[in-house]
């Protein structure tokens, strides 16, 4: 438990915010400058940001002690809703694509959530996986509607009514992704320390007391589940618009596992960790697959093992202890 939002007490958390806040600000500014200083990295970082927002959804559930192995479902539903929308309404605005995608993820989150919030632990995780694999099968089998394994092209949406060239559109979606990362990250941090978010996190420690406070643990979990599905929806929609094509791979179980992997890598339950984990993961994945094509998954697996064994707080945990050590020395 390392993130500022992770500890339940704001007074405990507020003891060391300055270095973290400054580093966060510096990190965001660095991202803003990427199209100028490292344009070749723009697409890679854009994909990492989209993934990071989806990982934030998984992070929300981790705060309640629940792991979902099927959250790519909402990632994919949002992407497909966007693709169908653009196919039926050529020239649809990107904000409309995003809004409809997220709405689709939220509706799916409500429907699936009503069922899965009855379960905890491994059953919760596996039921989520089952739902995502059912949707994956539908996407694969209903070829005439979904395009099967080839997927559907998502032609470039307009931006505030303007048709843009590829470069301009990529720049817009890049900055939109940064804005959403900051906005949703801030919202999630605030939500975690709010009464609603705090009650949600008590699912992890004592549902009996929750019931005896006059609250329904299932309803409480459902509220967080919906938030988590919505965040995955935002990530899926951004990914689809960035890549310009959606395929069943969006909801494949590996995608869900990848989200959990990144959440643990960044620091389970950490908001900043979701994005840092996604950036590190994407960079390692791209470069490892380029330079160690046959063993890159082995490298990633080994990396995760090292994190779990020696730094269970993930990258954020390491960063935190470094900041703390420096603060103590001063």
């Amino acid at each position, binding site marked *: 438990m390392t993130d500022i939002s992770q500890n339940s007490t704001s*007074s405990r958390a507020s003891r060391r915010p300055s270095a973290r806040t400054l580093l966060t600000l510096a990190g965001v500014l660095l991202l803003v400058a990427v199209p100028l200083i490292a344009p070749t990295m723009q697409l890679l970082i854009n994909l990492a940001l989209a993934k990071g927002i989806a990982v934030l959804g998984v992070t929300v559930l981790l705060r309640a002690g629940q792991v979902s192995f099927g959250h790519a479902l909402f990632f994919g539903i949002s992407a497909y809703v966007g693709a169908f929308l653009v196919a039926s309404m050529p020239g649809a605005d990107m904000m409309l694509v995003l809004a409809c995608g997220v709405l689709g993820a939220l509706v799916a989150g409500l429907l699936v959530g009503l069922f899965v919030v009855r379960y905890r632990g491994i059953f919760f995780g596996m039921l989520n996986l089952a739902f995502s694999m059912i949707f994956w099968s539908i996407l694969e089998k209903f070829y005439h509607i979904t395009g099967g394994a080839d997927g559907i092209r998502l032609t470039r949406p307009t931006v505030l009514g303007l048709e843009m060239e590829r470069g301009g559109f990529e720049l817009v979606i890049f900055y939109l992704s940064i804005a959403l990362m900051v906005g949703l990250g801030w919202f999630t941090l605030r939500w975690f320390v709010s009464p609603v978010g*705090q*009650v949600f996190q*008590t699912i992890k420690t004592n549902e*009996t*007391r929750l019931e005896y406070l*006059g609250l329904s643990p299932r309803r409480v979990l459902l509220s967080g589940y919906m938030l988590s599905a919505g965040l995955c929806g935002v990530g899926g929609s951004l990914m689809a618009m960035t890549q310009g094509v959606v395929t069943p791979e969006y909801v494949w179980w590996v995608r869900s596992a990848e989200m959990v992997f990144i959440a643990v890598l960044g620091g389970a339950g950490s908001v900043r960790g979701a994005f840092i984990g996604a950036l590190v993961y994407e960079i390692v994945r791209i470069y490892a697959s380029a330079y160690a094509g046959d063993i890159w998954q082995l490298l990633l697996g080994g990396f995760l093992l090292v994190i779990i064994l020696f730094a269970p707080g993930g990258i954020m945990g390491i960063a935190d202890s470094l900041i703390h050590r420096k603060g103590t020395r001063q």
Partner: protein
Amino acid sequence: MTAPLMETRDLLIKFGGVTAANNVSMQIWAGQNLAIIGPNGAGKTTFLNICTGWLKPQKGKVLLEGHDITPLPPRKIVRRGVARAFQIPQLFTEHTALENLLISAAAREGLRNPLQNLHNIAQRDEMMHLLDLVHCADVADRVVVELSEGQRKLIDIAVALALKPRLLLMDEPTSGVASSQKHEVMEILVGALAEAGVTSVFVEHDMGIVARHADEVAVWNAGNVQLRGTPDEILEHPDVIRDVIGEEVA
């Protein structure tokens, strides 16, 4: 004559061959401080579990001010003013003492603003006062797992009181507390209940506590109320001395 605050009628519940509640009919009157005593396995905790909706009786009813609450889940009974404190404190172990109370207050008031910090809710001063009332204000910012059993017991009760209940059901409020501190814990507790104007029912094994802090005692045996009366009447009763106490109270 006014209706009792809570009333049970012919409660029956069996676990396999064991009858834990055997046609229990009992009234709890507003303003009472009722102690339930009896040997282990007599059905005392089962009675509290039925009254708060955790267990459903196979027969019989639980009435709250004349309204049948038997089929309701615990959360709906809590919302009608019946709170519960447990033998093993049921707290949010990753939260501080104050946060446990703030969460309780937030639950009472309804969870509305998703962007307000829990520590800034309007009930913060009220919760600090409550912590003060149970003599735990000095540990407000400590995570509850770091606290003593006695402190956790008091905070568990404070969490229940934060809901502003009309009736509080407590299961062995002094169990696990060091013998030397039991009376002190109970003094604090009774004081807090009196200030909050809460009717209470507590299961207790320590007859010294019962003699000093209850205004009425119900003796449980084999899943039913065997006797009921003032502490003096009950604790001098030969059946109680033989079956429950084992020896006479000094």
